[in-house]
């Protein structure tokens, strides 16, 4: 199908892009377009203008600054997969990115686009949450920082104002942490029924820190705090992991849809959390 007609603009600075968004509430950002284009083709959305961020140089690329990994919003999944700084400082991102869409989608789709789309079944929002990443947004009033925990508000909804753009994401260094992205989908190409992003830092033989985030267990990605608390401070053996993983669905409100019923998702969350933690904790 053919999208409803729209205007197209390709600014070269964030400020110009923000100005377009500020002037037209029906304008929408085009990042990689891999989620947006199908939506437009099915006429589920009809923006007045697409603001293509492709030419905004400052939004591209990966760097390390102040001990943090900084990923430009327009960095493509393929670029992230091939970036050794990501592999070194946030290997969980690389692991999850390898499961995003398919080859073709990864060539065009962007890190910031995936996060801003805020699909609770998406891979990267849960990963950003697990990593306690910081979202840097730019709007007419300048830059502001939004913790990942506050960024994902609801189904396809972020804390970004309509005239704000996600510019970059700052990711704390997790080199040396154990990690695992445990994704369960019906088919190779399908959305995750549930996926678990897990990080475990061991110190002195025990578990010093645990991060677990889940996809598809609510209208936004959620942290499994009960699991984290239950595992941290233990010796991280299989018994401790199994006990902790049993809390995975606590406080979640998993959806009931064609991809899975709520009770099945709750069950899967526990099983997959156990598997993810087992891998991440090296148990």
């Amino acid at each position, binding site marked *: *199908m*053919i999208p*409803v*007609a729209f205007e197209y603009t390709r600014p070269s600075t964030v400020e110009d892009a923000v100005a377009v968004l500020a002037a037209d509430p029906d304008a929408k950002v085009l990042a990689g377009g891999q989620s947006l284009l199908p939506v437009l083709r*099915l006429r589920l959305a009809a923006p007045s203008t697409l603001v293509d961020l492709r030419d905004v140089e400052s939004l591209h690329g990966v760097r390390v600054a102040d001990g943090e990994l900084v990923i430009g919003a327009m960095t493509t999944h393929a670029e992230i997969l091939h970036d050794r700084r990501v592999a070194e400082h946030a290997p969980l991102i690389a692991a999850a990115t390898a499961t995003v869409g398919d080859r073709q989608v990864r060539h065009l789709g962007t890190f910031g686009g995936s996060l801003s789309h805020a699909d609770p079944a998406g891979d990267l929002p849960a990963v950003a949450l697990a990593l306690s990443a910081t979202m840097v947004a730019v709007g007419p009033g300048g830059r502001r920082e939004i913790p990942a925990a506050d960024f994902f508000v609801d189904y396809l909804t972020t804390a970004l104002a309509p005239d704000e753009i996600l510019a970059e994401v700052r990711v704390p260094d997790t080199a040396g942490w154990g990690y695992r992205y445990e994704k*369960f989908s*019906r*088919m*190779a*190409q*399908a*959305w995750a*029924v549930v996926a678990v992003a897990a990080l475990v830092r061991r110190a002195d033989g025990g578990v010093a820190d645990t991060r677990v985030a889940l996809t598809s267990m609510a209208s936004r990605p959620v942290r499994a705090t009960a699991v984290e608390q239950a595992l941290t401070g233990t010796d991280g053996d299989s018994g401790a992991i199994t006990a902790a993983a049993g809390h995975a669905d606590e406080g979640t409100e998993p959806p009931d*849809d*064609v*991809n*899975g*019923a709520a*009770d*099945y998702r709750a*069950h*899967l969350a526990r*099983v*997959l959390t156990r598997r993810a933690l087992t891998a991440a904790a090296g148990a």
Partner: protein
Amino acid sequence: MSTTQEQEVGAARRRKEDAHLITGQTTWTDNIQLPGTVHAALLRSPMAHARIRVDVSAARDEPGVVAAYSGADLADELAGLPSAWQVTPDWVAPEHKPLAVDEARYAGDAIAVVVADTRAHAVDALDAIEVDYEPLPVVLDMEQAMADGSPLVHTDAGTNVCFRYADTFGDLDAAFADAPVRIRRRFVQQRLVACAMEPRSVLVAPVPAAGEYTVWSSTQIPHFVRLFLAMLSGVPESRIRVIAPDVGGGFGSKLDIYAEELLAFTLAKKLGRPVKWTETRSEAFQATVHGRDQIQDLELAADADGRIRGLRVDLLADMGAYLQLLTPAIPLLGRAMFPGIYKMDAYRFGCVGVFTDKTPTDAYRGAGRPEATFAIERMLDELAAELHVDPLEMRRRNWIGHEEFPYTQIAGLTYDSGNYEAATARATELFDYDGLRAEQARRREEHDPVQLGIGVSTYTEMCGLAPSRWLGERGYAGGGWEAATVRVLPTGKVEAVIGTSPHGQGHVTTFSQLVADTLGVPFDDVEVIHGDTAAAPAGLDTYGSRSLAVGGVAVWRAAQRVLGKAKTLAAHLLEVSEDDLEFSGGNFAVRGTPGAAKSIQEVAFAAFAAHSMPDGMEPTLSADFVLEPDDFSFPHGTHLCAVEVDTETGRVEIRSYVAVDDVGKVVNPMIVEGQVHGGLAQGIAQALHEVARYDADGNLTTGTMVDYTPPTAADLPSFVLDRTETPSTTNPLGVKGVGEAGTIASTPAVVNAVVDALRPFGVVDVPMPCTPENVWRALHEAQGGAA
């Protein structure tokens, strides 16, 4: 003189079809761009059942719009769509207008059309159409549809029952009375979507002054499209040319006369311009026929040793909202196949066709036979489990022995040939059956969270649709013959004109091999012409694994006729008796006279020049043959599947899959293997992945490729294939069909494997598709969990 040919039949010839397909030099219908073409877009009801009032007038003012019509606007001009198979004298066949006039009966039912200068303008203008929808009660479930007081899909019909059909063979009561073993099961054949990769498309180009029309359509059945467009429009058939150009798969879904074909034709006639319509994938999910959708209630009676005494089959078959070309006949094509390869004393088959507010169903790869094969093969495994007998052994106790062919089975079909023992022996060997059973025992013992299951399917199917008399006796309006013409051109090149209409199968290659062997000409010298009613005017097209067993035999017969004529002419030219001629490698040689010979190419030129012909012989070297098949042929085989089931998540992984098929004589083994691969993929997809699901309001919730989940390369295993070869006795080539065999055999093999893995947990069935969730739920429920 040409040189001696290698034997073509049996060779894995690479396909002639490929050259243009791998380079993008294709002619899909949507590729064709004619000057002045206007584009049609359809407005479809978002509601499953509603009274509609449609006002298109505002759409007519939109940019680029040439015309816009509601169903009411065209009610007098558009005939109802045909259903060609009256399965019972008192069937209910409601009118099915291409555009619904006052009521929409499924989500996706077309209710208005816009024609514009570009596709984008046509789609844009749909938004300007005003529709009042008055919601009507929706009925989606077949059993509810049959209950008293149910909402009616077609109020005028007074019932949701389309037909009731029943047959009994043998003494059923005797078979079931006192039977030591009786097993009852209900299986649900979920609704499926064919998902041919090319969406449907139709382009109609009129020559208004001449009243002539050329129609390009992505169809399996150009000859039927021509026939029905003529019958429905009143335009003489002789002025309609239908072309099926490159067609990107069908699997039964393009074996139909569709609303959009008649609509595009009617609009081209009204507007005097070429009209094109191409389906989007989202439309395809709603508006192209669906497949399967049966509830099967089965009961099997057996002796204590497992010998089958009788089988009772009661089906509910979902027609959807309307009857398409063959809708009611699909479940009945399975009528005689429920007994499978087994002997039994008695058999009853009953089927009720039911209307619901859903997309119409019709043929999907196998069409009635996969459903039947699934039922009997699942029941054999249940019987084996009940009696603690190995499932292969249970089949041996009941199947028809190779020495018993031809064998007339309980439902009256005569199986021409087969050797179930040989195929099964080969399959078990390739599969390492005993080794896998040992591993299964070990995993069970160790309470491995990943359990191993082994599934068996020993299938047969009736292919080669079909003897015309057989069809006529069952209420089908048409016949089952096939036509071919073979002509040797003056230059010695050969044209074979065929009535089948391939859309991926490889007829051009296969039929070239047949003709090359028969006439002793090079494979590359044979051109196969098809899919155009102007070039190949007679034919009944491609479906039902009929193309080789019926169409191929027709081509071979026509080539034989050409050869006979050539021989007579060669004898005349060489001034010898025909009996003195020997034909080999394309040459007619006089026995005992070295050097005295004519090649078939020389004979062809002589027939063209016609300077010296035998008395009464017509010039040119050409012959027709219309083949009426004697009977069906019955391929068979043994498929073995091993699955690993993760009992924690419910995920099923196919560990190994062995298929040993017997499709009779094989013309091109490479093409046969390809057909089996693809068939397996679709059968496995039914077993594990696919379902067309509706919500309570009648919206299709699996209406995209994301939600319907056709398997990708990463979701399928590599298959191990082999063949045994038991020639058919119902045709002179000894060939059987292969297009549907893989699909028919694989679904029960996989589900049997899944259930086998879980039997120790008390699971006796997993509803299809055996998705992780369905498997988990079956396990959970078997273990007393309230799921």
